[in-house]
């Protein structure tokens, strides 16, 4: 029976095979949700699911796509936004 703090499911369980052959359970923090597009709500590609300290260690260019509204809007929503902007400027 695991100790009290590990009986809840707030921490996820990772099964690891020890060198002796027996399986051990490691308790790790859960990853955050996938970030959604601000308009249509689909899951964004190119945005990693990591906790804050790991994200802070990453370079900026690997945290989101390198286009305008990268990491906020999905590519198709960004395109329509740009189209609207161009047509409005005329």
């Amino acid at each position, binding site marked *: 029976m695991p100790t009290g703090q590990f009986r809840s499911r707030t921490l996820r369980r990772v099964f690891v095979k020890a060198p002796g052959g027996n399986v051990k359970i490691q308790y790790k923090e859960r990853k955050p949700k996938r970030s959604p597009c601000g308009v249509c709500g689909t899951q964004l590609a190119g945005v990693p699911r990591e906790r804050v300290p790991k994200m802070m260690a990453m370079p900026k260019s690997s945290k989101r796509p390198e*286009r305008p509204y990268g990491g906020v809007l999905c590519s198709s929503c960004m395109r329509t936004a740009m189209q609207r902007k*161009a047509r409005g400027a005329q």
Partner: protein
Amino acid sequence: MNIFDTGRVCVKLAGRDAGKRCVIVECLDSQFVLVDGETRRRKVNVKHLEPLEEVLDIKPGISHEQLHAVFEKRGWNVWDTKPKNAAARPQQKRKVAVKDTSKSKEKKATKLKGKEVEASAKNEESPALAALEKPKKIKAKKEE
């Protein structure tokens, strides 16, 4: 007449140049065009362009420098690559002690003489002997 003809001003919709103004420099294909201006000069699919009303009077295949002038007249931004040569690094200078000209001359003289002795020793005898002789002579000079 094709909308995407040379001189047509467009806005790029996709990629890192999205939302930037560009001009079609050359029609390569029914689908692909060469584009330059605020974006990088590159081949682009027509699907990634939003055509505007304006058409510039431009020769097909105009160079980037010429287009730069056209854009600047209109007050539009132009994509410019950064110069490749890095700025000159600050070089460290050796700290030079205040020279006594007379002393330095003496030192040079001793060095020269030492070398001569070495050379002669190499010719005649073993270099170990020359090494023994050399410091003695310098010491003697210093005493003088």
